[in-house]
């Protein structure tokens, strides 16, 4: 008996809303018929039948949110088939439980984690800026946070505009610019041709002339076409002109490893851009940081490379509800205070690091977890101070090991806190290979929670 399964709209979709049923029990369907409409925060799609037969059962009611991909949503009886065979009861288990932290992937209740609640680390975004203790926090996705940041800055300063592929009429390839065209019009929210080198250069020229462009790259992979303009024109301009000509602008878009898109669409440019003097490089993890730092980036008089992450766009977090939430560039956040070992990460690496932290804390290791947030200027002080206290450092990133952020931190710690180290610094990184397509190989190529735990065990000499 064919089951109709909840489909994925994209490689990174994990769940969605079953918005509407277009068939009912007893309807005869053939392949190509539209059965239902499903929705995510990013898109809407129709589910078509690939089977022929009669709808015998609707398993998930219209309007249900948070339906996991591959969950059976209906049964279709082929001609001659008998009803009554019990469908498999349980949907395929989610690959890994959502982290039981504020930065949760799903709004659904977190699965009962092994970690005692009291020991779980907590993010406290209030600790970042000087916010009043009683500030109201609003839950939103990273995508919404970025969208709000841009909308607020577009409202605030008429010199700010956004350009890129599909940012306007399509509402953003990843829906980060949703609604901006409607509010700000086509003069300020500008669809470009597929011409990264050209529009990046054009935007740099506009910045020289005093505007404040926000350039969206559909992904940072495509920005390789434009890297000359980012580095040779934008980053070096102030210096080459003896301080005369500025390039106040933001280059932004999803960076890092997506899901199942293979080598050319899955890489992390954090270390590449962090290498370049003249650039500011920001790689946020939480929704609050995404908002507060993007606003800061747009206001910065310098060219900013703002590295988002496709997989994190849909994750939710608490964002302070204040009129103008701007975070300082260049300040790491201590996500959890601890005394035994320092884990430093940023962006998607923070997901592995936080999940590992939960488990380690549950096992009695007092982890100090630091989210760098800004990669240039790198907040060495926070890391060094922490290592002086813990004597041990593990770094976590999705990028390649050679010349990576972990390599840089390792060098700085050796230079500035050598005598405080009780163990060699260990790096957990993406593997030193182009990203493979096959699901099993891709998983192997990425860093994971177990590797972080193993590294912490090694530097703390626990077996």
């Amino acid at each position, binding site marked *: 008996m064919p089951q109709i399964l909840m489909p994925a709209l994209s490689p990174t979709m994990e769940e969605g809303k079953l918005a509407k049923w277009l068939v009912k029990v007893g309807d005869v369907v053939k392949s190509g018929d539209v059965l239902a409409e499903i929705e995510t925060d990013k898109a809407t799609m129709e589910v078509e039948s690939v089977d022929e037969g009669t709808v015998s059962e609707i398993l998930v009611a219209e309007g249900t949110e948070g339906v996991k991909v591959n969950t059976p949503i209906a049964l279709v009886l082929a001609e001659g088939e008998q009803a009554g065979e019990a469908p498999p009861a349980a949907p395929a288990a989610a690959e890994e439980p959502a982290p039981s932290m504020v930065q949760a992937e799903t709004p659904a209740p977190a699965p009962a984690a092994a970690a005692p609640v009291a020991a779980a680390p907590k993010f406290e975004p209030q600790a970042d800026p000087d916010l009043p203790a009683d500030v109201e926090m609003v839950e939103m996705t990273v995508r919404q946070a970025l969208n709000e940041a841009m909308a607020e800055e577009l409202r605030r300063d008429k010199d700010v505009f956004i350009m890129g592929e599909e940012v306007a009429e399509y509402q953003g390839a990843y829906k980060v610019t949703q609604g901006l065209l409607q509010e700000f019009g086509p003069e300020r929210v500008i669809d470009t041709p597929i011409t990264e*080198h050209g529009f990046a*250069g054009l935007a740099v020229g506009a910045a020289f002339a005093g505007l404040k462009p926000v350039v969206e790259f559909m992904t940072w992979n495509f920005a390789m076409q434009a890297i000359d303009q980012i580095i040779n*024109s934008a980053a070096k301009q102030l210096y*080459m002109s*003896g301080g005369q000509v500025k390039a106040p602008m933001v280059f932004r878009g999803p960076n890092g490893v997506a899901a199942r898109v293979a080598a050319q669409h899955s890489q992390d440019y954090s270390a590449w851009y962090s290498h370049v003097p003249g650039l500011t490089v920001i790689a946020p993890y939480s929704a609050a940081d995404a908002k507060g730092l993007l606003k800061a980036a747009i206001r910065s008089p310098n060219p900013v490379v703002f590295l988002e992450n496709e997989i994190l766009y849909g994750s939710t977090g608490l964002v302070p509800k204040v009129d103008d939430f701007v975070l300082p560039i260049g300040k790491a956040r201590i996500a959890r205070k601890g005394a035994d070992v320092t884990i430093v990460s940023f962006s998607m690496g923070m997901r592995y690091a936080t999940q590992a932290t939960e488990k380690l804390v549950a096992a009695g290791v007092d982890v100090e977890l630091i989210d760098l947030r800004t990669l240039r200027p790198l907040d060495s002080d926070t890391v060094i101070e922490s290592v002086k206290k813990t004597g041990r450092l593990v770094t976590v990133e999705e990028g390649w090991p050679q010349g990576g952020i972990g390599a840089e931190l390792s060098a700085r710690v050796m230079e500035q806190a050598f005598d405080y180290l009780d163990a060699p610094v260990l790096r957990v990184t993406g593997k030193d290979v182009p990203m493979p397509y096959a699901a099993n190989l891709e998983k192997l190529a990425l860093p994971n929670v177990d590797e972080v735990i193993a590294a912490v065990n090694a530097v703390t000499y626990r077996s």
Partner: protein
Amino acid sequence: MARKATATKAKTQANVPQFTNEQELEAFREMLLIRRFEEKAGQMYGMGLIGGFCHLYIGQEAVVTGITMASEKGKDAQITGYRDHGHMLVMGLDPKGVMAELTGRQGGLSKGKGGSMHMFSNEHRFYGGNGIVGAQASLGTGLAFASKYTGDGSVSITYFGDGAANQGQVYESFNMAKLWNLPVVYIIENNKYAMGTSIERAAATTDFSMRGASFNIPGEQVDGMDVRMVFDAAKRAIEHARSGKGPYILEMLTYRYRGHSMSDPAKYRTKDEVTKYRQERDPIEQVRARLLEAGTVTEEDLKKIETDIRAIVTEAADFATNDPEPDPSELWTDITIEA
């Protein structure tokens, strides 16, 4: 459609736009300043006072002079590649600052941190001085974008060479410039050689004025050795861009007398070719001959101008030789702006 210019057909005197006496004298002064400045720069390079790359504009003076005369100074933006000294002199930047930048001194336009290829002036709206071949095409298109965005009525005058004309981003820029009708005039300075490679060996089609045809950008081929022709075409092109009709291409047929850079012995062309240009087409000599023929000035008058210009260049060279190098602390300034 791209159209063949009146200028290309203008071999007959009847079609040549005429300059007033004042215009002839202005062109003479500006071009002579570039010539003498560049000759001095070449000499100082030979003395080891100027380092790195040094690309001289000798032979091409009419291009930037005629175009700048046709533009609104202080309003229209200009941007070019690495052969940029002439542009700055004509736009009114201090020759001392330019020469001191060549020698890497603290009084240079970029405090000695940019060098020959990297000089700028927000005040004069000169945006370089760009060392990456073709990058200025996109940047200049962005200057035009800013003009349209703010509605300030300025035109972006974006220069690049026949070599850069084969870079991909030039066509990305053409496409966006026409798509959005941006006020930009692309000046293709065709001096026949991209470094050591002649246009015939590098370009599938050598009529660069046609390079915008598939984007519906009009183009003209212009005698870039005759400052009157340059001025006339530039007036037309700038007016086109300023009036909201979008980009315009002017291919300037010009010639550089010196090598690509100071280290280039120019073995890829004959001495005769160079001599022919110098003797028959020299942009400065053309003006000198016309002025004398018209009888409005005397040899003595022109000598006086020569003397004045030599004094300016000598002053610049002296300044650039004696000005101190930047303070070591400058190594660490101007990297980013503290917010």
